[in-house]
């Protein structure tokens, strides 16, 4: 039975979760995951977690808010929350998103058109808790009650909500049950944006109460600003790693690979998601092979944050976002490059190209470009020799939300794939109508407690359905299949999710980037760049 959750339940004073998900009630998946009874059980939260942090929302806990010890402490936190809520609606504190936020607060018609567009709501078996408007409706009621100081008439018109600590704590968690993919906003007849509401809630908690996901803040943007990369790699370490990758690529391809560092006046400053260097070294390696072969005058930067395009602030904190974006631009300015090219990382694309467009001014406003267009230019203009028959295996393409729906880079990667992959097939839907991988907005790096269970069973479920459907005609373990995901964050989600469901072991579905496919069919490179091994 589905839980019948009401908005007022969010203020329930106990700490018991409001909803509980069971595999049988989730959206069904196609073969070979079509037996919910065989699906993994969810790990339960430990007693220690339940007794020490706020986890009164559902079966998991993403941000580990310590339970206040006294009523006074609770009241103080509520007071701070309300102060932050006020700040969210002032131009001094939130000029960055004030107008769209007010519009979303004041004009939702509560038609629920957005619900059908949300992969999380659908995958959860249409659980009320994950309806895109659920958190927005609470936020809206808080806005009219607390920010606009609405009285009885306002409560009658807009609805009322009891403000207490349990509500605030649950709302903080609920802000982390949305991938910020904004598919819901795309379908809204009025243009209200539930994704933005979740984003702004995260900001409020981070910027006012210092509450955020540790993976995004302490181990993310803070670490990046401390040492240069959220991976923890200093510039010395990253240079060492790249040197090792160059050697490895030289051996694999038979082409001498050398990655240029800190070349002043280069045409291109390439910034990778540094996670690639650690987890998928063949990706930066393949970039080096392609750019060198195409004769591009390019460089990497060893400046702080200049070698890591990650900008986790995009998901939860404007100050952190702006700091990192400025670091990226400063690295480019110092080298005097003609443009910044972003590697295969969706959120980095949107962060630096789109969102930072109105942060970077003057000489920090250096042109930024997607690697998809540069690669398209190289491949379609035959600047390197390619043999598509080397890629004669089923390939499907995942569209990273940040790159596609939120930035409009849709076709360049497709042109490349159509040219070099004879067995390319689209997922459905795709392009700007794509579904999120389930790892968006930081989820791919968030694995605390049992959050992974929620991430795989719910957030990534719709994408899993799409992947399996794309390969239904070749669901045979003797056929190698390639899921192309030109985004580090999405690859992280696929790595974890494909392993969880044993889809490499049992169905030979491998994931990887776009550049790997290009190098795999480069005539001048030794065959077999893609090794068909799990990594």
């Amino acid at each position: 039975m589905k839980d019948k959750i009401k908005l007022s339940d969010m203020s329930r004073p106990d700490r018991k979760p409001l909803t509980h998900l069971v595999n049988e009630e989730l959206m069904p998946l196609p073969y070979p995951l079509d037996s919910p009874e065989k699906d993994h059980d969810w790990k339960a939260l430990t007693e220690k977690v339940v007794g020490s942090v706020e986890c009164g929302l559902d079966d998991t806990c993403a941000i580990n808010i310590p339970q206040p010890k006294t009523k006074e402490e609770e009241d103080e936190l509520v007071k701070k929350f309300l102060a932050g809520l006020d700040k969210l609606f002032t131009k001094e504190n939130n000029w960055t998103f004030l107008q769209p936020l007010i519009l979303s607060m004041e004009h939702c018609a509560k038609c629920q058109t957005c619900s059908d567009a949300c992969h999380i709501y659908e995958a959860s078996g249409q659980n009320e808790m994950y309806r895109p408007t659920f958190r927005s409706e609470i936020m809206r009621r808080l806005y009219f009650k607390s920010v606009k100081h609405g009285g009885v008439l306002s409560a009658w018109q807009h609805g009322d909500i009891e403000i207490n600590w349990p509500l605030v704590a649950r709302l903080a968690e609920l802000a982390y049950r949305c991938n910020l993919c904004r598919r819901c906003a795309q379908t809204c007849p009025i243009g209200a944006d539930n994704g933005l509401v979740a984003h702004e809630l995260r900001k409020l908690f981070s910027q006012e109460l210092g509450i955020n996901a540790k993976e995004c803040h302490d181990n993310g943007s803070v670490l990046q600003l401390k040492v240069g990369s959220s991976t923890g790699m200093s510039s010395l370490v990253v240079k060492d790693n790249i040197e090792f990758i160059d050697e490895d690529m030289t051996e694999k391809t038979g082409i001498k690979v050398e990655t240029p560092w800190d070349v002043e006046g280069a045409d291109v400053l390439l910034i990778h998601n540094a996670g690639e260097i650690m987890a998928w070294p063949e990706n930066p390696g393949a970039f080096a092979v392609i750019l060198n072969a195409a004769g591009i005058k390019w460089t990497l930067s060893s400046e702080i944050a200049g070698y890591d395009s990650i900008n986790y602030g995009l998901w939860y904190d404007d100050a952190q976002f702006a700091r990192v974006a400025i670091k990226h631009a400063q690295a480019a300015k110092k080298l005097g490059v003609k443009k910044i090219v972003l590697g295969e990382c969706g959120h980095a694309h949107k962060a630096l190209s789109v969102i930072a467009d109105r942060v970077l001014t003057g000489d920090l406003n250096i042109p930024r470009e997607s690697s998809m267009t540069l690669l398209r230019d190289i491949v379609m203009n035959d600047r390197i020799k390619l043999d598509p028959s080397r890629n004669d295996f089923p390939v499907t393409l995942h569209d990273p939300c940040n790159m596609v729906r939120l930035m409009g880079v849709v076709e360049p990667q497709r042109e490349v794939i159509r040219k070099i992959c004879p067995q390319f097939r689209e997922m459905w839907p795709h392009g700007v109508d794509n579904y999120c991988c389930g790892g968006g907005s930081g989820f791919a790096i968030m694995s605390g407690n049992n959050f992974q269970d929620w991430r795989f069973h719910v957030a990534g479920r719709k994408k899993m359905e799409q992947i399996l459907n794309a390969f239904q005609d070749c669901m045979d373990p003797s056929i190698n299949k390639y899921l192309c995901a030109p985004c580090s964050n999405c690859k992280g989600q696929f790595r974890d999710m494909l392993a969880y469901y044993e889809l490499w072991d049992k169905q030979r579905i491998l994931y990887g980037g776009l550049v790997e496919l290009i190098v795999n069919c480069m005539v001048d490179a030794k065959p077999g760049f893609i090794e068909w091994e799990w990594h």
Partner: protein
Amino acid sequence: MSVLVYLALYAGAAVFVVATAARAWMYARAPIHLRWELYPVPHEDPAKVKHGGSYFEDKDWWTHKHRYNLAGELAVMVPEMLFLNALHEFNRKLWYRSFPFHFGLYLLIGACGLLLVAALLGIFAPALMAGALGMAFHWLYTVVGAAGVALSMLGAVGLLVRRLTDPDLKPSTTPGDIFNLLFFIVAFGVLVAGFILRGPEAPGILALVQGLLTFNTAMAVPGLLATGIVLCALLAAYIPLTHMSHFVGKYFTYHDVRWNDQVNLRGSKIEAKLAEYLTYRPNWSAPHVTADGKRTWADIATTNPWEGTKK
């Protein structure tokens, strides 16, 4: 009675105009926000709009002239306004109710416009309106108005029933939502009843509008019709005070948010505005923001609190 009717109509129209303008002004003067567009953006290059692409798909996009395709934007915007295309595509069940409601309102607005023109012509060029033209106007505003009120009421009843019975809509429905739809149904219902039952000696709708324009207090408006008119005037005043003013909000959500892909060029107006915003002094409390109400956004964004600290 006629004085009350005229005052209600003038006041209703005035509140509608002022409240709508105030709302639009509030949104328009908000700071330029960070970009938050959603693709497809219809004023992009038509070749790109087909797949939802942007100028970011072009190599060295900043070296190309970015053409604003107004025709493409209108091709999406006009059908969206008239036919609620997004609702038709994504929520067909609701569209069957919402479309007649909204289209009926458009027809009613059109009928009011026709009445106004006919009334003005009748006052200033009575000879012109004495013949076929007057008859044409009569049939036009009567048919358009009747169709409008019928469609609106039908749609409003459909929306109300759905809101009361649909398990998807019920949880977020407030008493205000019910009241809003009932207000339409009652106001239009009383207006129609008053019009039908007004009696042979009562003024026609054109005469009423002419009376309104000339403030003819000698005109006798039957009670039920007067009540319907006053209710409609109250409704007009009420709409812009509620979320039903989404006809204003929608302009901004589409043009200023969803479709706003305007590039910040060096030396541009946007850059000048950003320079102003960067002087704002936030007072967020979390220590990592380092906002104390004295430091500006520029100070905060260019400060790395962790620079030089060890891992």
